[in-house]
């Protein structure tokens, strides 16, 4: 098998992708979808859905199917191409292809998520680059009548002896050649661009207000709308008198669905005023989300009730004779909202039985199919144009924010941009589930854990988003990070209870790892404390023979100066976790101020993401993941009251701010195949923080967020 197919295709085909350019070499290739966030195999039909075009003026455009939401793939994927192509980096352009009819434009069948983009695309993008490079070399060889081996590709040109021709110059000749089936891919030692800190291609547009997000879509004759859905999840609209909205200057339509009312007008403000003028009556009898106090009891009850066994290794009962000390604790985390900076929105234009959508969406290909099914149009008549995403974090792998725009456009017979208020965005999130875990361990005389017995109670995201992943009462996704511990504990059991409290659930940056790492790494710290062992030493003993893990711990220990005594008044905690194909460890160093204010002094992170494509992006993702996780650990909590979300905006859903954030020192190790980087930064920070808090205060914080225990983050600088 030669791996991915790369073909020489017509320029016309590329132009249909949206590039308005002339001439040159165009290669089409198939960007594999792999598994989507729901475990469906997508993009496996081998259709061409990625393109590279080299124009006579030397511009090189790569069309991509993966959304850019801050994670840097619109820089990393072109880097991979440029590396193999030996392109001049300054000539590279990126085009995000819409999900649309095959043959007209490319099909973005795969979703962007799971820290998976580089892992799934490296092979084919590098191959496309290598094949383009060899075609340009062949074009030069033909032109100069020299052997192919004499034609060397370097920095956007082919050189043979004293002759040189630019890629632009050779592009037309190369376009006449058949694409070879294979081409040599560089080894890592040959990399010249990959592995080097490379600035983002989108930084200029994003630093001058020119980058276009979903909220920025403008179409001719477009209306702008806003929406209120029944505040109670699952509730319905009983009735609404549209008249008060229609008297607001600029309001043109009031559109209702069975569960929502939308007001459309000349701009967001008129629409918003119109919506505020309405007094819809809701029927919440079909709402089913249980209130927070009920949920708390329900979680505790689920832990005591019937559970499914997920891991059963060794024999805990028999091992009890080696146990000299037992500890049991429980940990708990709340519902969380992703709070993307860009609120939910989409623009739709329904006309002539065709549907065009412009949206900041992570899963364009899948939503395109869903739109076709739900609105009864042919797949070929649906196009989803993907904008920049003002944050994704898992929230934008969904159709719920696209549907209202389509309905509104159908009704108004005009293009409609449907923008949710922040309050609507937070009231109708797809939340990270609440979770509770009970952990019991038996330690032998030297203080090592010989038995590990964990039970998790977590409502299932899959049950709502991808029921086929749930078998009986087991959603394997709910326990990732607790089910496959790297630690050599001989007798282990993991049980799982799947309660359902009716609230809508979805993906949240790092998904189950956001709580499994907190539970597991907190508990290990408790074991270390109980046995009087240094937390690094305990983990090293449990990881004997595991080279990558031990190397990471050694680097983390060294980089955080763990062996040296911290300054007076400073305390440290550490955590380690494996997820998304990467290994990551973090150390938090803090001091306590007055009024239970925590001053974060420094954070050290070491990630082993296998191969580092762009160290600058890896650093940014780990820093950002840590801050995302810090916000959750300190402040994040969505309560449910009367079947609805309580927190509705940033005044009640607090975020970590600049003044509270310490220097984050990120170190990168490369110990295996490519791993993910978008999510691994998040999971270890909560346990590293609470473990440091234990060192500082002697109090074990087993429930998040920490603000509920009266803790907050202090500003780091004062005059």
């Amino acid at each position, binding site marked *: 098998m030669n791996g991915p197919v790369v073909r020489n295709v017509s320029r016309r085909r590329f132009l249909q992708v949206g590039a308005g350019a002339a001439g040159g070499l165009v290669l089409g290739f198939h960007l594999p979808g792999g598994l989507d966030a729901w475990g469906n195999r997508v993009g496996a039909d081998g259709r061409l859905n990625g393109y590279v075009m080299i124009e006579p003026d030397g511009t090189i455009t790569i069309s991509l199917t993966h959304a850019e939401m*801050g994670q840097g793939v619109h820089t990393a994927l072109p880097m991979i191409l440029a590396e193999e192509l030996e392109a001049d980096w300054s000539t590279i352009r990126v085009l995000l292809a819409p999900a649309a009819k095959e043959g007209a434009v490319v099909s973005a069948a795969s979703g962007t998520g799971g820290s998976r983009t580089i892992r799934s695309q490296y092979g084919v993008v590098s191959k496309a680059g290598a094949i383009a490079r060899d075609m340009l070399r062949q074009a030069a060889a033909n032109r100069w009548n020299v052997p192919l081996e004499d034609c060397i590709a370097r920095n956007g040109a082919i050189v043979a002896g004293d002759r040189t021709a630019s890629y632009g110059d050779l592009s037309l000749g190369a376009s006449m050649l058949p694409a070879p089936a294979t081409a040599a891919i560089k080894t890592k030692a040959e990399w010249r661009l990959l592995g080097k800190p490379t600035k983002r291609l989108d930084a200029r547009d994003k630093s001058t207000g020119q980058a276009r997000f979903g909220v920025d879509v403008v179409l001719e004759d477009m209306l702008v709308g806003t929406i209120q859905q029944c505040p109670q999840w699952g509730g319905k609209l009983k009735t609404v008198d549209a008249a008060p909205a229609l008297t607001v200057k600029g309001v043109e339509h009031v559109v209702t669905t069975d569960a929502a009312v939308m007001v459309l007008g000349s701009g967001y403000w008129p629409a918003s005023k119109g919506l505020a003028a309405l007094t819809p009556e809701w029927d919440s009898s079909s709402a089913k989300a249980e209130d927070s106090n009920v949920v708390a009891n329900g979680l505790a009850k689920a832990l005591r009730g019937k559970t499914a066994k997920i891991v059963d290794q060794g024999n805990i009962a028999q091992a009890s004779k080696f146990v000299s000390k037992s500890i049991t604790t429980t940990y708990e985390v709340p519902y969380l909202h992703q709070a993307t900076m860009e609120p939910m929105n989409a623009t739709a234009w329904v006309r002539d039985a065709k549907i065009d959508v412009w949206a900041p969406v992570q899963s364009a290909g899948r939503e395109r199919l869903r739109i076709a099914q739900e609105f009864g149009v042919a797949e070929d008549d649906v196009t989803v144009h993907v904008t920049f995403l003002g944050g994704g974090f898992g929230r934008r792998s969904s159709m719920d924010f696209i549907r209202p725009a389509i309905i509104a456009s159908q009704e108004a017979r005009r293009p409609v941009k449907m923008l949710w208020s922040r309050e609507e965005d937070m009231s109708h999130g797809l939340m990270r589930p609440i979770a509770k875990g009970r952990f019991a361990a038996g330690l032998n005389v030297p203080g090592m854990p010989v038995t590990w017995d964990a039970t998790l109670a977590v409502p299932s995201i899959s049950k709502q988003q991808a029921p086929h992943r749930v078998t009986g009462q087991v959603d394997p996704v709910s326990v990732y990070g607790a089910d496959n511990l790297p630690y050599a504990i001989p007798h282990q059991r993991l049980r799982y209870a799947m309660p359902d409290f009716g609230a809508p659930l979805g993906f949240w940056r790092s998904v189950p790892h956001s709580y499994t790492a907190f539970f597991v790494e907190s508990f290990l710290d408790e074991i270390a404390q109980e046995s009087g062992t240094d937390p690094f030493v305990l983990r090293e003993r449990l990881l004997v023979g595991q080279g990558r893990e031990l190397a990471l711990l050694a680097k983390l220990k060294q980089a955080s100066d763990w062996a040296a005594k911290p300054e007076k008044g400073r305390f440290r905690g550490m955590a380690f976790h494996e997820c998304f194909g990467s290994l990551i460890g973090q150390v938090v160093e803090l001091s306590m101020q007055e009024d239970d204010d925590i001053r974060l002094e420094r954070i050290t992170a070491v990630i082993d993401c296998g191969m580092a494509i762009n160290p600058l992006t890896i650093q940014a993702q780990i820093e950002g993941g840590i801050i995302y996780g810090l916000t959750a650990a300190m402040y994040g909590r969505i309560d449910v009251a009367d079947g609805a979300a309580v927190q509705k905006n940033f*005044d009640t859903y607090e975020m970590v*701010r*600049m003044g509270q954030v310490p220097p984050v020192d990120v170190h990168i190790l490369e110990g295996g195949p490519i791993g993910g980087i978008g999510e691994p930064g998040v999971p270890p920070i909560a346990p590293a923080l609470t473990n440091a808090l234990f060192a500082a205060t002697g109090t074990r914080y087993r429930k998040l967020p920490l603000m509920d225990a009266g803790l907050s983050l202090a500003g780091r600088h004062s005059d």
Partner: protein
Amino acid sequence: MAYVLRINGVDHRLDIDGDTPVLWALRDNLGLMGTKYGCGISACGACTVLADDAAVRSCGVSVEEAEGLDIITIEGLAEVGMGDMSDAWVEEDVPQCGYCQSGQIMAAAALLSENKKPTDAEIDAAMTNICRCGTYSRIRKAIHRVVEER
């Protein structure tokens, strides 16, 4: 009733309700999309603009209140000699998703027009905008870079 807003040095006459926040006049009436909506309650700072050189959250100021103010948006920043802000943001590779960055840059521009060499504490006090991607440390570096290069 019509209102006259001075945006990036040009007067615009807008026939809209006086309670319309400047944010929406910029975006929906003037097509200046660089200023972003984040919360509508002046809590996140994504909509920050300069008004008479001060950082103002434009979702919280109506066009009626804004008459007579000299408003600068991200689109007009280079024209008033502060394009070095954007340059520093690019040099420090600040943006991730990028959605909050116009507001961050405008908040920093206001700080530096008032205080040529702010301390880290002064930066913290001025820079309270939310960045969900967590680009804070690079924003700080970019601000220091502007200070050094001016």
